[in-house]
């Protein structure tokens, strides 16, 4: 080692620290490539773990586009209590959206039966994002017509009459609705107009509750206690399929993450082992000058650990950036940095670095310093 002499304040561990620092600084190239390996590995591990934790939440918001996962229905033809929606919304406390629906069978001007539904147009747009609507009603006396219903009652979009229990309502067609299911045969009215006309209260509340399966179960229980006397049930079609798809995706992601982290760790192992092995002359000189085994081991371990620690911190920053980019590129949503990933990445990096130092150390310990110094 060719160190330029320089005056320096040396404390109790001054020499140890100085050797550590100079060893890194003097042979920057090798130290840098070792550090780079750790940084890349830590970054990849951080990005993968962060994605693994966050992706489930991101996918769940995608799955909510399938609509309601809980329905509240009144028992046997009775309407729900008047304050049911308010109670459901209180129980939800912002963890989802609840939309009331009221139905009657009315008749068209030629006397054929038609299902008319009343709902909250503002929230139903968010709940049932798959509804293809040409124009939403926004004035009083406007209705949303299912595509099949429109062909029957208002083929040219002209105003039409509906009657229910002798009371006739004159309506304008605001737009048509296409879903490919039962909705196509219905006429949808704003709930206020609907109740004023029929006097019928909502009989169903559909809820899209956010969160994991466990969280949705908790919400389900809270809603059940909030609306006694109503039947609250999960939409199994939605919940089971979601659980299945999410479970498979998670497992695949986990397998991929494990493979990638393993590869990255091997990369670190290879680079760091070579780095320590490369410095066998330092090792030999220290030993020849009378340093104890413990001191030398401590020295190399400290060096490896600090490379691991610095690399982990830098890598964490880069990995968070990579995860955020993936989040934006794929989900159009930001992936929040998870601090909970840091300890495992930090400790993991240090462990791998120490392991990489320990392997060549065990090899070198058996060798006489003279042999190494002679260059064999």
């Amino acid at each position, binding site marked *: 080692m060719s160190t330029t002499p320089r005056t320096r304040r040396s404390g109790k561990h001054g020499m140890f620290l100085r050797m550590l620092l100079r060893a890194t600084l003097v042979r920057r190239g090798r130290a840098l*490539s070792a550090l780079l390996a750790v940084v*890349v590995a830590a970054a*990849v591990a951080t990005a993968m773990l962060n994605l693994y934790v966050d*992706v489930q939440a*991101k996918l769940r918001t995608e799955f909510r*586009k*399938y*609509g309601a996962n809980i329905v509240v229905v009144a028992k046997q033809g009775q309407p729900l209590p008047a304050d049911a929606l308010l109670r459901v919304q209180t129980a939800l406390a912002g963890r989802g959206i609840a939309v009331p629906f009221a*139905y009657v*069978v009315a008749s068209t001007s030629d006397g*054929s*039966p*038609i*299902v008319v539904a009343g709902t909250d147009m503002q929230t139903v747009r968010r709940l049932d994002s*798959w*509804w293809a609507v040409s124009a939403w009603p926004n004035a009083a006396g406007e209705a949303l017509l299912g595509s*099949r219903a429109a062909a029957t009652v208002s083929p040219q979009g002209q105003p039409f009459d509906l009657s229910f229990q002798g009371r006739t309502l004159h309506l304008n067609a605001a737009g048509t609705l*296409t*879903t*490919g*299911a*039962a909705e*196509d*045969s219905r006429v949808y009215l704003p709930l206020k107009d609907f109740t004023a006309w029929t006097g019928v209260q909502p*009989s*169903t509340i559909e809820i899209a509750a956010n969160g994991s399966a466990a969280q949705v179960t908790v919400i389900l229980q809270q809603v059940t206690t909030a609306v006694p006397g109503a039947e609250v*049930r999960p*939409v*199994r*079609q*939605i919940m*089971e*399929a979601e659980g*299945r*798809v999410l479970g*498979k*995706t998670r*497992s*695949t992601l986990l*397998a*991929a993450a494990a*493979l*990638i982290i393993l*590869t*990255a760790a*091997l*990369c670190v192992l*290879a*680079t760091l*082992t*070579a780095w320590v*092995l*490369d410095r066998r*002359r330092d090792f030999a000189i220290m030993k020849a000058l009378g340093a104890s085994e413990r001191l030398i081991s401590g020295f190399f371990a400290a060096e490896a650990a600090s490379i691991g620690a610095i690399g982990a911190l830098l890598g964490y920053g880069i990995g968070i950036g*990579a995860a955020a980019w*993936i989040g934006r*590129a*794929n989900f159009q949503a930001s992936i929040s940095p998870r601090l909970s990933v840091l300890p495992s990445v930090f400790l993991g990096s240090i462990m791998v670095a120490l392991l990489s130092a320990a392997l060549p150390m065990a090899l070198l310990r058996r060798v006489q310093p003279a042999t190494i110094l002679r*260059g*064999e």
Partner: protein
Amino acid sequence: MFGRLVFESFRRQRRRKLLAGIAVALGVAVATAMIAVATNIGDKINQELRSYGANLLITPQADTLDVEIGGVDLKPPSDGAFLREADVLRIKGTFWKNNIVGFAPMLPVRANLGTGAQSQSVELVGTYFAKQLAYDHESFITGVRTTNPWWKVSGAWPGDDSSDVLLGQTLAEKLGRKPGDSIEINGQARRVTGILTTGGAEDGQVVAPLHVAQEILGRPGAVRRVYVSALTKPQDALALRDPKTMSPAMLERWSCSPYVQSIAYVLQQSLPHARVEPIRQVASTEGTVLERIKGLMLLITVAALLASVLAVSAAMATAIFERRNEIGLMKALGAANITVASVFFAEAVLLAVMGGIIGFFGGGLLAREIGRSIFNSQISVEPVLFPVILGIATLVTFAGSAAAILRAMRFDPVYALKADA
């Protein structure tokens, strides 16, 4: 001489060569497995998304409006139009027959349960459970067990040719019936093989084989609607265009892509008097979910490739850096730079080919294991990938060695021989 140099290097430095070879093999294995998983994940997830149920609905064209609230049909059962059960089979004769995972015809009718004063009118739905059918000498099994996988039965599913029935859970509780009991439907005793739980309107209904419902209605061969579950491609701008306004070339591209719209179009043409419509709740949402998962796996595969490249080049750089002395010796004996470099490059290529072959097959095994344990189905590695992977492995090993070889050659042989690194 050249050959001997390379050969001896492998023979004498078995441990070091083994380490570098393992690194290459591992890197290639991870890359192969990830590429295989990423190219297959779309199909696998698409298959899983079918558990959301049917994405196409076939109804009679001349039908009157549905009068249905909360899954309960309020329309008089004899009202409106019907499809013919025999026509429905044609689904399996269309261009997209291999994309059709399954279909289930439905025929809701009113039936009287019990006798005398206790008799009550309930809805009975006739359908296929797992019916064995054949079209064009091709036999297949279809029914609600395929299209509606969330239907759970405690007890046993009835046979499609039997006259046994399933009772919805709430209805069974109300009537106090258990699997194995018998129940009187329209005056005929039927065996209840199981209790059905769906979380939907079926919980309050009776579900029976299709022919039972047809007998009750008195219309053999009639079907009210058919739910079809098809594997589709996520929608894009082309999918949503109206086929009537397309140019012939575009129409061909549109009708050869398994969009839900083009499958609906083909089904509509092959079924007389039927209208086929995508169920938007399922059809339009599954596309976005599928795209997200595929995109995610693609990005992760890129990350895996990057990690493998780094691991391989790190291992190669290390292996060559350790052999500075040899390079020094060769140069001191008068070898030209190009000779030295070619020896090392030849070694690198040899390592890459051997590691690549082992890695490719290891990766294939890994992919198969992932497919088996996660998706319960095969993920196979395309043989086409083999030369590609081998080429990439050689290139990466080459590139990983190049920097180290160049650096080692710039080294003054005197220092190398003195071992004064």
